[in-house]
């Protein structure tokens, strides 16, 4: 690890100004950033912890029934506090990593990082969430821009993530055997006005919506709605843990399981 300055502001405004410094970087739960620093793969001058900002903490239900989660809320908090209001999302949070990771890692950090095998990107895209930052609101459909890349500008902070709550939803995660991130994860959400299917872990372009499956399910929400549909393996990820064809196959299986869970 290289040396850095450490700041822990208590308001979003102070955090934003601290992040204005040269090479300053936001620190959420540190579950990705700290290992990166230890390997000397990043050298920020200042780390600005978002963990001391009360406005960025916790889960609450908005007047329109949507669930708003503070950007610095840990996975463990979401798993317990959203269990009643948005059980599928709470279940997703409860399946991330191990207890130590869940007690440190945050939703804002996960979305900002946009790891191609992470769970929250699927939850946010599948739910049609709105990512709220210190400057603007970004629809999930416009937020994820490929591997480890998002619409966030330099120094922009995710302060809240707003989730509309579907009639039914399910996250099906097939574990990568070593990391236990998603080898393939599918988040399916059924709203009054349509079904959304978001896939993580599978594509070389990061999280994506499987629009053919959505169309089929919008026609009729049935278990065998996917018959005849498949994902083109061409831009799936291939690595030690699975070939392109295997990942494409798992997308279908996980989607089928998610449909079953929503029946």
């Amino acid at each position: 690890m290289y040396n850095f300055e450490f700041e822990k502001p208590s308001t979003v405004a102070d955090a934003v100004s601290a992040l204005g410094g040269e090479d300053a970087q936001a620190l959420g739960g540190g579950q990705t950033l700290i290992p990166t620093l230890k390997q000397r793969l990043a050298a920020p001058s200042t780390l600005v912890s978002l963990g001391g900002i009360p406005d960025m903490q916790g889960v609450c239900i908005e007047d329109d029934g949507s669930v708003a989660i503070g950007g610095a809320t840990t996975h463990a908090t979401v798993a317990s506090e959203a269990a009643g209001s948005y059980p599928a999302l709470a279940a997703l949070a409860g399946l991330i990593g191990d207890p130590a990771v869940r007690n440190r890692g945050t939703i804002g950090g996960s979305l900002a990082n946009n790891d191609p095998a992470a769970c929250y990107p699927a939850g946010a895209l599948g739910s049609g969430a709105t990512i709220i930052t210190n400057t603007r609101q970004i629809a999930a459909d416009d937020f994820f821009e490929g591997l480890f890349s998002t619409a966030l500008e330099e120094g922009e902070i995710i302060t809240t993530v707003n989730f509309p709550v579907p009639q039914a939803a399910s996250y099906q995660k097939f574990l990568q055997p070593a990391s236990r991130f998603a080898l393939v994860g599918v988040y399916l959400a059924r709203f009054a006005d349509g079904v959304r299917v978001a896939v993580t872990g599978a594509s070389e372009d990061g999280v994506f919506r499987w629009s053919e499956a959505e169309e089929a399910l919008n026609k009729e929400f049935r278990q065998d709605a996917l018959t005849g549909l498949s994902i083109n393996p061409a831009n799936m990820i291939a690595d030690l843990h699975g070939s392109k064809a295997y990942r494409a196959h798992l997308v279908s299986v996980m989607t089928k399981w998610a449909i079953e869970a929503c029946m």
Partner: protein
Amino acid sequence: MPKDSGIGASSKRREDVRFLTGAGNYTDDINVHGQAYVHFLRSDIAHGRIKSIDTSAAEAMPGVVKVFTGKDFEGVGGMPCGWEVTDKHGAPMQEPPHPILAQGKVRHVGDPIAAVVADSLEQARDAAEAIDLDIEELPAVMNMKAAAQDGSTLVHDDLKNNICYDWQLGETDDTKVDEVFANAAHVTTLDLVNNRLVANPMEPRVAVGEYKRGTDEYTLFTTSQNPHVIRLLMCAFVLGLPEHKVRVVAPDVGGGFGTKIFHYAEEAFCTFAAKACNRPVKWTSSRSEAFMSDAHGRDHVSKIELALDADNNFIGLRTNTYANLGAYLSTFSSSVPTWLHGTLMAGNYKTPVIQVNVKAMFTNTVPVDAYRGAGRPEATYQLERVVDKAARELGVDPIALRRQNFITQFPYDTPVALTYDTGDYNGTMDKLEVAADLAGFAARRAESEANGKLRGLGINCYIEACGIAPSNIVGMLGARAGLYDAATVRVNATGSISVMVGAHSHGQGHETAFPQVVADMIGIDESMVEIVHGDTSKIPFGMGTYGSRSLAVCGSAMVKATEKVIEKGKKIAAHLLEASEADIELKDGQFSVAGTDKSVAWGDVTLTAYVPHNYPLEVEPGLEETAFYDPANFTYPAGAYACEVEVDPETGQVTVEAFNAADDFGNIVNPMIVDGQVHGGIGQGIGQALLENCAYDENGQLLSASFMDYAMPRADDVPFYGVDHSSQTPCTHNPLGVKGCGEAGAIGSPPAVVNAVLDALNSGGKAVEHIDMPVSPSRVWAAMNS
């Protein structure tokens, strides 16, 4: 009736009090006043020629004490190999130099090029980044078969090729072997890979070197399974230091699994640098460094052929193996694919003709050496997979086929150089059939099928040669050391006992089990006995712990030393009781005159030994005895394992539903500790079978370089095990009749798991002959859809 103390009792592991409450003293807990820290600059390419190294900028960095490169070690030896294997033409193996820091070339990702010693670790890392390297990248030698071809790029330019040795064991006459196969009624052939593993003990390696100018003495604190071996190798072969000036301490060690047997460059470096810098020097491996510098395990590519006659008797076995040694010879690497592997190819079966062929290869990968089981898992896996395949091809019951071919007469001379002293393979198979409820399998399969899952049952047997090893035999086979062990039993005046042992405990529970033996022999409370281990300045010259040898070899030395103590105690008691020595008996801590009520307590005798006022003049004062023990033979634990798996046909996911082990370990000192050893071994075996895979790409980059990609088994990957060790044929040649249990689980379990997966797939109507380990979901799915 289970005993509550002494031999046979499940005494609670006393060492766990400190381990479980954070009071252990591991090497990284040791900090020496004034110590500096070393950071190794390691190669990030697999193979390259060093054109220049400029350390001048690094030397000028803040806090830097000294920067070392290969040049600084030109005057000292390299890392030695402890076993010279002779090839099948009678020539010695090719033995390239292994410098402490790279000289001329780098040969694997992780090969240390330079070392920076600085006031702090971060300063050392900063300075290492300022070292200017010019390395010309060369093609990486990765594929063993290609590496064996003439004209392949050479890992070591001075060798004639990349083959360390081309070795053979068993039948030397190829025509005879060919004839057996030509006349066979059935031949089963299998090509398989025994996957490369990284041991990954929880505690990474650490070394702290210290030099005292005033007395010219060195101390090395290190994470080792065998401190005396490290001292001997480092002093005699690497640094040229007098042994009496060097103390090696291996305090609490957080797991070894073989990978902490070997003498590593970092140990020699810290010792050397402590004098060169006139400061203690400490190195703590990061997990990333461990992946690319701890010796790896396994990595064999084999073809095995089994010939059977018309009655399904095994009549011949032939294997051809390429064994990966990595870039350099690690301490015992050469012995693993040969004398620890070929000799076990008979397994539990009376196959009359066996030929084992092994080509050991240099490649641009991390050195490969012993890992829990070392060679014996590779042998067992080949044999038990081919036997299973033969049973399927012939449509016979895999248990019946095995039973039919079991060795039943002992002692038994195998065609591959061993003499099994005793065993009862039907006995353990009988126990297994009951414990695993094989009769109920069909019902369990039906239930799984009703849930859309395939269920499979995998059976296998194993035998291992452990209690390593008779020095005269291993000497003939090329070992450059003896493999006896030693113990000193020091009785204190008040009757408590310290036993200084050569074996090292790094999870095995010696601190509990060894005192059980001594206390039982004397008839005193276990709490009166303690063992001392892990410090060359305190213990007699012993060879350490590996090869399931501690109790069988060091424990035997301890028994001999205790017997000497008891003999002397009887002399003193006879004097005190005014009786003849021949009439003195020791029982429950009392020396008594046979047939009388005259007795004297253990503590009175020990006190008399140290306060010899009323004392037999011909007897020396004091009560302390040492014994060395060299075993007459290996010991041969054996057993039968059963694994039940479910396979999800949609995803290829395998779950282990049940695992039962029936082992014959001979006599047992602490059944609970034995259970634990078997549990751990099976856990590692399931890890190898389903999860673990150390993979390189074709350029020699390590793909599984962290726990993000290297899958260690977790608690929920394994079932609750059934362990039975009630079938016991005591070892015939050591005083305790014990055989050793540390490696059995890791040796016996991988084939059971793989056999079970194949049984499941075949039960689903898919004829799958083989899947290489790790049998991951993606591989299972690919096999089902091929």
